[in-house]
């Protein structure tokens, strides 16, 4: 993924879209999450390729509008957004830095679970299904705090 960005002739467009965050998790951009797959400029039209996290994620609508708004503000009025399904989105695309910001925001990252408050690994899953499709509901047995975990997907 990173290669697609570093090799892109549209680095500036990627930078603009770094301003578009997930509406539920404002510490992560759509690039951090792997929602933003590619962006290109062709005859003054910006073509953006995104992939949904979960098929029913209601944030996708908001994200689409936010992409258009960010590009418009930067002077690009012609924007085409295409949704792509392959490769299917996976939490494996979250890098170490994104996981760290997620933890600081109070959400445990996917994979091995540690309480984002006290760091204990003595945790219990309350429910695999949490406040949004992408999160499970957990509880820390050490500090007793409930917390969200980004599901491994």
């Amino acid at each position, binding site marked *: 993924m990173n290669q697609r960005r570093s090799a892109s002739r549209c680095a500036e467009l990627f930078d603009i879209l770094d301003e578009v965050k997930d509406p539920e998790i404002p510490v992560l951009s759509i690039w951090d999450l792997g929602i933003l797959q590619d962006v290109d400029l062709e005859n003054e039209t910006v073509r953006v390729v995104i992939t*949904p996290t*979960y*098929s*029913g*994620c*209601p944030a996708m609508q908001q994200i689409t509008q936010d992409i258009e708004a960010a590009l418009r503000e930067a002077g690009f009025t012609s924007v085409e957004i295409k949704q*792509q*399904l*392959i490769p*299917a*989105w996976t939490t494996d695309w979250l890098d170490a830095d994104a996981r760290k910001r997620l933890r600081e925001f109070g959400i445990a990252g996917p994979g091995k679970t540690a309480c984002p408050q006290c760091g204990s690994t003595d945790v219990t899953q*309350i*429910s*695999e*299904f*949490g*406040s949004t*499709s992408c999160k499970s*509901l957990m509880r820390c047995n050490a500090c007793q705090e409930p917390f969200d975990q980004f*599901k491994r*997907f």
Partner: protein
Amino acid sequence: MTEANSDIAEYSLRLGDDALILAQRLCEWCADAPLLEEDIAIANVGLDYIGRARMFLQYAGELTGSSEDELAYLRDSAEFRNLLMVELPRGDFAFSMVRQYLLDEYESLFFAGLKQSKDANLAGIAEKTLKEVHYHLRRSREWMRRLALGTEESHRRSQDAIDELWGYVAEFFESDEVEERLVGLGIAVERRDLEQAWRASVGELAAKTGLMVPDDDLRQTGGRSGVHTEHLGHLLAEMQFVQRSYPGLKW
């Protein structure tokens, strides 16, 4: 439109309708599930189905020149192509959960097959869907054990549900000319081939939980050709009324 494209549109419509109608039934539990965590879980699963419905209906609409909203809100019951099982009223919690389990076992086989489709759009939707089906199945299997091995009442209700639902299982594995042609092109899944594996999985869980697998006397089918139970019309009345009363209304 070529015959192949018209068949693909019909196929995508069928799969979209399965997801749309079940989503509606699942979301009827929102704020009414037996416990808070389950309320959240069932609505989450419903949301996955709505997302799936949109992907299939968008694709069907691209091929036929209609929008996903027109397909969802402006067709009448005889034009819907969903499996009958998904339109049955939600019943009690055991009924909804047994239905979910029977469907999840079926979907895990079906979408694994559709992932191999030669149609890139269908294969893409299937790949996305299959990941979600896996955790749906994990949840419904767990509930099956909990209900069937729980109290006498939860066991009885689970058995009643499986008895009631069994007559609608035949339709999972029934094919027709449209699907046969698409199977020939490597686009659709040969559903008859899924039956043995499905029966093995369901039979294994039933044996472990003391549920009796019913006889196959009743084979109620017709959803794929638009012959529905009376329940679908009532569901559509609720789902479609805003769009019917205020034509063209947008969010």
